[in-house]
């Protein structure tokens, strides 16, 4: 339709599509790897509510605003909310998943560095969304 030589445009579109295929393939692969939950991952129930986080360990221990875990172990979270949608986020461990009322969401991770890390809310939930924070304490197992 244009009367111009169009091969540069086809090459360009071909390169774009090739790059996009690479992005798609890599993303698919990484997601597949990180979603594979280890069998021995310990369960932690996470509940978000306006405006705090509560946690329940497998042995029944409950914590409010703080989560104490051990380095080198695998943990899986079952995340839900009591009221509005929140989002459970430990940024330094790239853990992020919505806490949706009426639904339980699953994510797992293994902390490999000891220390204190911020827990924050990543979905607007009203007045104190900005300060719906907690702390993750990862203890050295001493092993």
């Amino acid at each position, binding site marked *: 339709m244009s009367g111009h030589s169009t091969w540069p445009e086809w090459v360009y579109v071909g390169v774009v599509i090739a*790059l996009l295929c690479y992005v798609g393939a*890599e993303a698919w692969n*990484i997601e597949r*790897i*990180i979603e594979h939950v280890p069998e021995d991952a310990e369960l932690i129930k996470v509940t978000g509510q306006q405006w705090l986080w509560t946690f329940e360990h497998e042995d029944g221990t409950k914590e409010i605003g703080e989560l104490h875990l051990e380095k080198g172990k695998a943990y899986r979270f079952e995340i839900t909310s009591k009221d509005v949608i929140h989002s459970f986020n430990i940024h330094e461990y790239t853990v992020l998943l919505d806490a949706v009322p009426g639904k339980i969401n699953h994510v797992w991770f*293994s902390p*490999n560095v000891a220390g204190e890390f911020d827990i924050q809310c990543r979905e607007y939930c009203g007045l104190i969304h900005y300060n719906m924070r907690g702390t993750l304490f990862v203890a050295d197992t001493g092993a």
Partner: protein
Amino acid sequence: MKVIIGLGMVLGLLVILPAVEHAFAAGSEVGEYLDRKVAIWGLFYRLMIIAFTVGTVVSGMIVWLVLRFRESNPKAKPTPYEASGDW
């Protein structure tokens, strides 16, 4: 020529890095789990390499076009369409 070698090196990096990364992410000791952080951020850095390479090429192209085809450039000459005033 240099451009092709440069782009080829970038592509090569993109092929090698995933393998290197899986080694790091998988954990160096027996019984260790995948380090989610390393896997995700590794993907991010690889995509940033592509984004910045493409971005440099495109921005560089835009800058060159703007400088070369501005009407005040000494090499500027009227387009074939200016004779008829119809474009």
